[in-house]
C-alpha cells in the first residue's frame, strides 16, 4: 500500500527522526513507521514519537533539522496550514526538513476524500514573507518511494524544506513495486547546531534587523532557489495535438485517456510536472509548441491551470474534479470530442 511503501522507503533511505500527529488520510504512514521503528529495521532510525499538534510537529522537525539530522512528518491539509509558520522560519533559517502532504478535501475540515486542492498553498502561499519549498508530486507508489529518498537529498543539498504532495488515492492504493532496496542517502551536516565542540559557533537564524543585511540574505536565498532544476515527464507529447497537463494521480488518468484517444485517431499526449515548485515552465513551453489544444486536468476548481496558462501563453481548457470525487477517464475523453 502507498503508505507502507513511503514508510519503508523513508527508513531505508536513512530517516533518523519521525515526529507526527495523526490526521486522516495520512495516519497510516505514521502507523507504519511505528511498526518499522519497533522492529529496528534500520539502526539510523533512532527517534519516533507522536507530537501534541502539527504546530509542535513542525517545530520538532525544525529542531532535528537544525541539528543536521534527517527528519520527516506526514500530514494533510488542516495540519499543513498549522505548519506554515514553521516552514516560513525554516526557509530563511535554511533548515532541511521533509513533509509528506496527503491532499484531502478542503478548504476547512472538508472531507477525507482525495483532492488536489493544496496546489496553490504549497506552491504559491506556503507561509508569510514569500516562503517556499521544493514540491515533488509522485504519480505512482514506486515514484513516491524514489521521491522520498530524493526529498532527503534535496533538502540537505539546498538546505530547504521539501514537500511531497500526494493524495488520498496514492496513499491507499495497492500496487506492485520493485523491491530493490533504496540506497541510503549521505548528507552534509557541517553547518548544523550541535554544540561548538571547539570550533566557531553556528547560528541558525531568520531575524536580520538591518535591511541591508536582510537584503543580502534574501538575494542569496533567491539565487539558491534558481539553482534548483525542475523535473517533468513527457508521455507521447512530442507530436501531440491535444496536450493534457496533469500531475499526481490525475496524470495517470490523463495517460489512460491519451492512450485511448490515440486509438481513436486523436494525437493526444500528457505533460506531467514532477516538481510543482519550481514549476517546469520551459519544459512545458517546449512540449506544447506543436499542440493546438492544451487541457489541464486537476482534482480542484482550477489551480495549476493558471501556471500552465502563464507558461504556454494561450487559452488553456480545464477538466476539474471537485469535492473528492475520483477522476474519470471517460469524462476526460468526452472533453476532447
Amino acid at each position: 500500500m502507498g503508505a507502507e511503501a513511503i514508510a519503508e522507503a523513508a527508513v531505508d533511505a536513512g530517516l533518523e527522526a519521525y515526529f507526527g500527529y495523526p490526521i486522516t488520510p495520512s495516519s497510516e504512514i505514521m502507523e507504519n513507521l511505528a511498526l518499522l521503528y519497533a522492529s529496528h529495521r534500520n539502526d539510523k532510525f533512532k527517534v519516533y514519537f507522536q507530537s501534541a499538534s502539527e504546530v509542535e510537529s513542525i517545530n520538532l522537525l525544525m529542531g532535528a533539522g537544525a541539528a543536521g539530522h534527517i527528519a520527516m512528518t506526514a500530514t494533510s491539509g488542516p495540519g499543513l496550514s498549522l505548519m506554515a509558520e514553521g516552514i516560513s522560519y525554516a526557509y530563511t533559517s535554511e533548515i532541511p526538513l521533509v513533509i509528506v502532504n496527503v491532499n484531502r478535501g478542503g478548504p476547512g475540515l472538508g472531507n477525507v476524500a482525495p483532492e488536489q486542492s493544496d496546489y496553490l498553498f504549497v506552491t504559491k502561499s506556503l507561509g508569510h514573507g514569500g516562503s517556499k519549498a521544493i514540491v515533488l508530486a509522485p504519480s505512482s507508489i514506486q515514484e513516491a518511494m524514489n521521491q522520498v529518498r530524493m526529498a532527503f537529498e534535496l533538502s540537505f543539498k539546498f538546505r530547504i524544506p521539501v514537500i511531497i504532495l500526494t493524495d488520498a488515492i496514492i496513499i491507499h492504493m495497492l500496487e506492485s513495486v520493485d523491491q530493490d532496496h533504496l540506497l541510503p542517502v549521505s548528507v552534509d551536516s557541517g553547518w548544523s547546531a550541535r554544540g561548538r565542540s571547539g570550533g566557531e559557533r553556528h547560528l541558525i537564524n531568520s531575524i536580520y534587523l538591518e535591511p541591508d543585511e536582510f537584503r543580502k540574505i534574501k538575494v542569496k536565498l533567491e539565487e539558491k532557489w534558481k539553482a534548483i532544476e525542475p523535473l517533468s515527464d513527457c508521455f507521447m507529447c512530442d507530436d501531440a495535438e491535444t496536450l493534457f497537463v496533469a500531475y499526481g494521480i490525475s496524470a495517470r488518468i490523463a495517460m489512460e485517456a491519451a492512450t485511448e484517444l490515440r486509438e481513436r485517431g486523436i494525437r493526444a499526449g500528457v505533460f506531467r510536472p514532477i516538481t510543482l515548485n519550481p514549476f517546469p515552465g520551459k519544459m512545458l513551453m517546449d512540449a506544447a509548441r506543436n499542440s493546438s489544444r492544451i487541457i489541464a486536468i486537476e482534482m480542484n476548481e482550477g489551480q495549476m491551470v493558471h501556471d500552465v496558462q502563464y507558461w504556454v501563453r494561450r487559452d488553456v481548457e480545464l477538466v476539474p474534479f471537485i469535492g473528492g470525487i475520483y477522476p474519470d477517464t471517460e469524462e476526460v475523453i468526452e472533453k476532447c470530442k
Partner: protein
Amino acid sequence: MQVKQLSAVIPGAVNTYCPGCEHGLLLKFIAMALEELGVTEKAIMVGSVGCSTLAFKFLNVDYVQAPHGRAPAIMTGIKEVEPGAIVFAVQGDGDALSIGLQELIHAANRGIPITVFMYNNMVFGMTGGQMAPTTPEGMVTTTTPFGRNTKASGPPINSCELLSCLSGPSYIRRVIIAPKPIQLKDRVMYSSKEANESYRAVVSALKTQMMGGFSYVEFLGTCNVNWKMSITDSKKYAHEVSAKVFPPRLFRDRFGVDSIES
C-alpha cells in the same frame, strides 16, 4: 590587569537590554554556569521571540531561533537527535505562557532533559509593554490602560504551580532575580542574595538536565522601562508585588541538585 573572560560570551559584545533589566544578568549566569559545569562546547541555545531573541548577539554558543512560543518543541527535536548536547532556552512570560503554553506543557510532561529559563517581568517587553498572562490584577499596561480586569481576562497564570501538576518535570523553581532594595540610614542598598540564589538555580537546572531530567526555572525580574518606573522603584515593585502574586520557592527537586555542594 587582564582577567579571564567567560568563553560563552562573545568578546566585546554588548547585550541589547535596557539599563537595569536583569535579563542580561540571566544570560551572564548562564554563561557562568556553562563554564562552571564545563559544558560550553556542548551547549545549544534555542532562542525565542521577545527580548530574549537577541541573546545570540551576546552569548557565543550554537543558536537555533524558534518561532514565538515554540522553543520547547524545537529543544525537544534537537535533544532527541543530539542527546549529548546541553539544550536550553530563555523564554519570556508572554512567549512561554501565552502562545507557547501548549508546547511548554507537553515538553514538560514528556520529561525530556531540556531546560527552560523563564524570565517573568509581567508584560510583553519587546513589543512595548502589553498585558501578559502573568500581569497581576490592576496593573496598568498599554493594552490595559485602566488596570488588568480579571473579570475580563482572568487572573495571572502561575506557571510553576501549573507544571507541578505534571509528573514529567524534575526541577521546578521560582526565584527573584531582582535585587531587593534595603533602606539604610543614609542610602538605599541592594541585596546580593537574589543574584546568588538565581545563579545557583541556573546551575541546578543545568545539572538536572545533565542527570536526565526536565528543568524549569522562573525568574521574577523587572522591566523598568515598560513599567514606567525608575530602576530602584522597579526593584521595589518586584519584591512587593511580583513576589506576592508569584511566591518564590522550590517546587520540585527530584534529583536533589539544590543540596549537592558543587
